[in-house]
């Protein structure tokens, strides 16, 4: 039966149909829903791992044990998983192993715009790239066939527009696949003597995969009568080309974008007057074609920055597009903000008030960077706040110890903050790390993590005790504060920054959006007492605004957290 299905849900459907029985991932937009959807199939064991490296290594273990396995992540997650990636390329698999990586061209929810296709080439692992949900199911299943017949992990490359678009699919049945494990050290123990013998096998595999790319229908030529132009494209770029040109020009639609076919491209190039590559971000396919000595239109015409669209494709190739009316008014932007009642707000206000330098990290609390709080000084990647703080303080020879902190979320701390904290303790920088523990992985849409006491399926799980963990790595000063209590926050932060040894402050309160969190009555403004001083506006709460010179609280948004009330010197904000 036909169904509308999200691209990520379609990957999960493909996992189900392919007989995959083990999924281990770390959440990251736009990849998260693959694993959430996979967890809904009883036949699939699915889990959130603490980070992508652990997830991929776990999926490798399941493959070795003889079970088709999977690991999903966003583009930057593959950087974390790159260490095992390059070596599972050498070992190959027992049962099929598929790794999905979702790129975020346009950076809707990411810190960079890296093009994951380079990883396929660098690690010598084939990469498939679906262009809609039906292909997401089909390619996931094909990925397992390729994985087992070529003895290789297979990368499945998604992007925001394929991951987060629903299109029509026809779901099929599940086929169970299992292999038996046999000890084979020459294949699976990658020490130099063995790895030297595996590398030539990897190179032979690449050559066989090129032959596969030449002949398999996953790379298909769609003919067109107008040979003035021929296109080579894949993924969502293929959809934009077809949207603009329909069936007019020949299109080589690549379903496998590494390794690339040579003859198929040569044949198309010879049959058309001009060859055009349409691809998002880097000129990855284009470089390959240029290496073949074929002249091609590519990044000389299309930008390697941001997403493409049908209008961009049309305009870059000489077409015209019509746009609607633009109002002359300046339309103010509407950036994402920390929610009303967000527990991070009180903490950030305290840091800003004390003029503290803040090394930030990846999560909802990155929004502490935006006005009016403007609380952050840097954000790089998962865990970088903690290790960055160490380098900042250590290199300053103690001069910044008392006025610099790291802010990192509970899930991000488990992902890759712990090792940074070990470094602070071991190499003794007098640093203060603040773990903003809101008891959930917030930004990606409320996933459980090792500190929440629940697993992906919602069952009770072992719970990491952050206080004990921090003490165990050698931090003697570990404090817990309630970020709704501004006076306490202020006192504890000052004390820990003044202390003459490393410390951790756990700012603990569950995310205000969690269903089990009970909100207090919304605050009201006593207009007679309000002196229009705008102190309450300094915390950037979306529930507070000024109307006719007086503070106004939107009762539908206010959660009654009371932080604004603590700022009012005139007692004008009351429950």
């Amino acid at each position, binding site marked *: 039966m*036909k*169904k*509308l299905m999200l691209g990520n849900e379609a990957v999960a459907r493909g996992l189900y149909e392919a007989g995959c029985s083990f999924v281990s991932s770390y959440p990251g*937009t*736009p990849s*998260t*829903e693959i694993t959430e959807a996979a967890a809904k199939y009883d036949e699939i064991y699915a889990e959130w791992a603490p980070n992508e490296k652990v997830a991929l290594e776990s999926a490798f273990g399941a493959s070795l044990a003889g079970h088709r396995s999977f690991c999903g992540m966003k583009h930057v997650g593959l950087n974390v998983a790159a260490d095992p990636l390059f070596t599972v390329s050498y070992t190959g698999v027992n049962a099929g192993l598929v790794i999905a990586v979702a790129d975020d061209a346009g950076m*809707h*929810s990411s810190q960079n715009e890296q093009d994951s296709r380079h990883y396929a080439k660098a690690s010598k692992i084939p990469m498939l790239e679906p262009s*809609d949900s039906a292909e997401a199911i089909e390619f996931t299943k094909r990925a397992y066939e390729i994985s087992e017949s070529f003895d290789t992990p297979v990368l499945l490359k998604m992007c*925001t*527009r*394929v991951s*987060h*678009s*629903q*299109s*029509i699919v026809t779901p099929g049945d599940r086929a169970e696949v299992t292999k038996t494990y046999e000890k084979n050290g020459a294949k699976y123990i990658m020490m130099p003597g063995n790895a030297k013998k595996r590398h030539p096998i990897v190179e032979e595999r690449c050559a066989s995969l090129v032959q596969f790319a030449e002949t398999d229908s996953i790379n298909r030529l769609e003919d067109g009568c107008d040979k003035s132009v021929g296109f080579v494209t894949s993924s*969502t770029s293929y*959809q*934009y080309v*077809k*949207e603009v040109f*329909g069936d007019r020009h020949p299109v080589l639609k690549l379903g496998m974008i590494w390794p690339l076919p040579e003859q198929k491209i040569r044949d198309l190039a010879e049959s058309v007057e001009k060859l055009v590559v349409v691809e998002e971000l880097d000129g990855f396919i284009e470089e390959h074609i240029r290496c073949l000595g074929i002249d091609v239109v590519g990044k000389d015409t299309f930008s390697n920055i941001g997403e493409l*669209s*049908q*209008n961009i494709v049309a305009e870059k190739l000489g077409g015209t*597009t*019509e*746009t*609607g*009316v*633009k*109002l002359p*008014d*300046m*339309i*103010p*932007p*509407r*950036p*994402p*903000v*920390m*929610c009303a009642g967000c527990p991070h707000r009180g903490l950030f206000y305290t840091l800003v008030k004390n003029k503290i330098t803040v090394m930030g990290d990846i999560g*909802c609390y990155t*929004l502490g960077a*935006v*006005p*009016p709080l403007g609380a952050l000084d840097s954000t790089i990647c998962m865990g970088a706040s903690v290790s960055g703080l160490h380098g900042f303080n250590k290199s300053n020879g103690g001069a910044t110890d008392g006025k610099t902190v790291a802010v990192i979320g509970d899930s991000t701390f488990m992902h890759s903050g712990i090792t940074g904290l070990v470094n602070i303790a071991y190499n003794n920088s007098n640093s203060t790390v603040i773990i903003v523990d809101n008891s959930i992985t917030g*930004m*990606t*849409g409320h996933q459980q993590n090792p500190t929440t006491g629940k697993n992906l399926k919602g069952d009770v799980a072992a719970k990491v005790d952050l206080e004990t963990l921090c003490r165990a790595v050698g931090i003697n000063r570990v404090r817990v504060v309630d970020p709704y209590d501004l006076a306490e926050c202020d006192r504890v932060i000052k004390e820990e920054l003044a202390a003459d040894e490393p410390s951790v402050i756990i700012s603990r309160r569950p995310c205000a959006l969690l269903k089990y969190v009970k909100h207090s009555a919304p605050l009201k403004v006593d207009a007679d007492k309000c002196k229009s001083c705008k102190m309450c*506006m300094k915390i*950037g709460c*979306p529930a*507070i*605004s*000024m109307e006719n010179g007086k503070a106004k609280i939107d009762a*539908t948004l206010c959660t009654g957290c009371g932080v604004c009330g603590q700022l009012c010197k005139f007692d004008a904000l009351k429950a």
Partner: protein
Amino acid sequence: MNSTKNVMIVGVGGQGSLLASKLLGRLLLTKGYDIKVSEVHGMSQRGGSVVTYVRFGDKVYSPIIDRGEADFIVSFELLEAARYTEYLKPDGRIVTNTQQINPMPVITGAAEYPADLDRKMKDAGINIDAFDALSLAEKAGSSKAVNLVLLGKLSRYFDFPVEDWMEAIEQSVPEKFLEMNKCAFLLGRDA
């Protein structure tokens, strides 16, 4: 160059635009169309500007709607309607709630919320239905039913019988909110 119809659903993160696109997609599926529905998750949910694209026709390729392509823009908030006017076809139509939600730059005083946006859009020659969907939703029983009120209004421009919309509502909302949502839809349809 093709017969694809384009509906953009825009609003502020958390206003319920995902249910509107889900319901519309479900209805269109029963009509035998090819469909693509695209949304952006993650950062944009935190009170930011959110956009969902619904495209349907004989064969739909692109998952997104580009400038000048929207047959309809359904907007949950007035400023968001004004933000996307460039996406409207010359003969397209905006169906918008007149509710105003200040974005953070307006709250902090860094920017102003432009006045009379509904009139300005009308004066610019845009076909627009601007009405207080929030009050109608509250009349139906919940401020959260703005999405159904707006869909009700949009349904006037489609040839599908009202029973088909009702069926799609039944498949999309939980039993206990069904009557309230149906009521909101009909209030919007008659607005």
